[in-house]
């Protein structure tokens, strides 16, 4: 009887050791496989040269009042509009309670540079480029599905859910802006 006990005990330990070994090998293998997946995924993220282009500096000295320019930033158009006093006044006069995406004009411009409206020119509905100085509100009008933006680029009518987004930007001086 004692013989049987000792062999079965011995056997039991063997099983445990084996289990541990297989779990360790399997675990290691799984960790390795998971680690190998990361380079296969991360290469799809923006590469270093794409990230490096994610800031642009623009000279705005030649943009007259009432004019606007478009620059490409991250593959998308950015509208830079030198607004007339009337447009600024119209934008400020809106009661933001009436807006779908409530934002004051001041929140969308930089203090001291209120005449300049800088925003990403991509309709927040489905990605078309709105046309400037058109539509009921004198701002932008998207021809794809009829979204209408005001002189502050805020959505006023149509299917778009939010205002035209304002990118991160800084005035380096009165005539140079860095976007991004």
């Amino acid at each position, binding site marked *: 009887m004692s013989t049987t006990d000792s062999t079965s005990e011995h056997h039991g330990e063997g099983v445990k050791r084996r289990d541990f*070994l297989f779990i360790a090998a399997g675990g290691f293998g799984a960790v390795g496989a998971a680690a190998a997946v990361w380079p296969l995924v991360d290469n799809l993220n923006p590469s270093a040269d794409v990230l490096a282009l994610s800031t642009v500096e623009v000279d705005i000295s030649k943009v007259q009042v009432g004019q606007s320019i478009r620059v490409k930033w991250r593959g998308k158009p950015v509208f830079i509009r030198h607004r007339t006093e009337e447009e600024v006044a119209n934008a400020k006069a809106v009661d933001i309670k009436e807006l779908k995406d409530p934002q004051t004009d001041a929140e969308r411009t930089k203090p001291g540079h209120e005449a300049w409206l800088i925003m990403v020119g991509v309709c927040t509905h489905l990605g078309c480029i709105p046309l400037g100085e058109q539509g009921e509100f004198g701002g932008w009008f998207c021809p794809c599905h009829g979204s209408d933006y005001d002189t502050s680029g805020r959505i006023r009518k149509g299917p778009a859910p939010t205002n035209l987004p304002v990118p991160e930007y800084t005035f380096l001086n009165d005539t140079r802006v860095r976007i991004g």
Partner: protein
Amino acid sequence: MNNKNILAGIALIAGVAVSSMAFAATNGEKPVHPKQGWPHEKVIGAHYDRQAAQRGFQIYREACHSCHSLNFVSFRQLEGIGFSEPEIKAIAASFTVMGEPDMETGDVKERPGQPFDYIPSTFANPEAAAASNNGAIPPDLSLMVKARPGGASYLYSILTGYREPTAEELKHVPGGKIPDGGHFNPYKAGHVIAMPPPLMDGLITYTEGQPPATVEQMAYDVSTFLAWAAEPKLEQRKSMGFVVVVFLLILTGLLFWSYKRISKQVLGH
């Protein structure tokens, strides 16, 4: 069972493959190594000598750039040899690059470089480069260290190898004499190189606290810089490689042990 034989056969194949690679290399002299060694050629803890690489960039700029382009290196990448962001901006701005078309006139004007720009070439095209260099196009240096057998040591040897040939050596030069516009260099295949000796003692003024600008030191520095330019991900590659190899050693051990256990269970041996 002939496992041993087969194993020997494979070892033979591998050995022959490697030795035939070495043979196919070059008929220039075997490159010499600098006395400092190359810290980036170490297996463990490989790194580029940052100070040397930064001095090397200065040499590239002042002594090489007028003839040799560096097309695949952009200013932003200089972060890899330890330049800070403001330094990179300043370096980029000190180069003139072709800008984007003017929005009103369509003219392309030159502008100061920005970090995302690539180091501009002195010549507009290979033809212009050839015209300014007696018909020989100075090769782009971005990948020079990987494009020559011997790597950084080859470059170092070429830069420090200029001298007068002995009468014996001259016999081995095709035609028996150095052709016009050629220079003797024992490390170059064929022993004649079109490039005049680019470095001489004191050619570059290093900033204070840096070693004296001897030809050896400058050759070491610029070779370090160009080794980095050719393989900027080397540090990441080797440090990651260490982890991967250690990991696989353990995994292989565990799997071998597991296999032996299973073999014992199902085959009995």
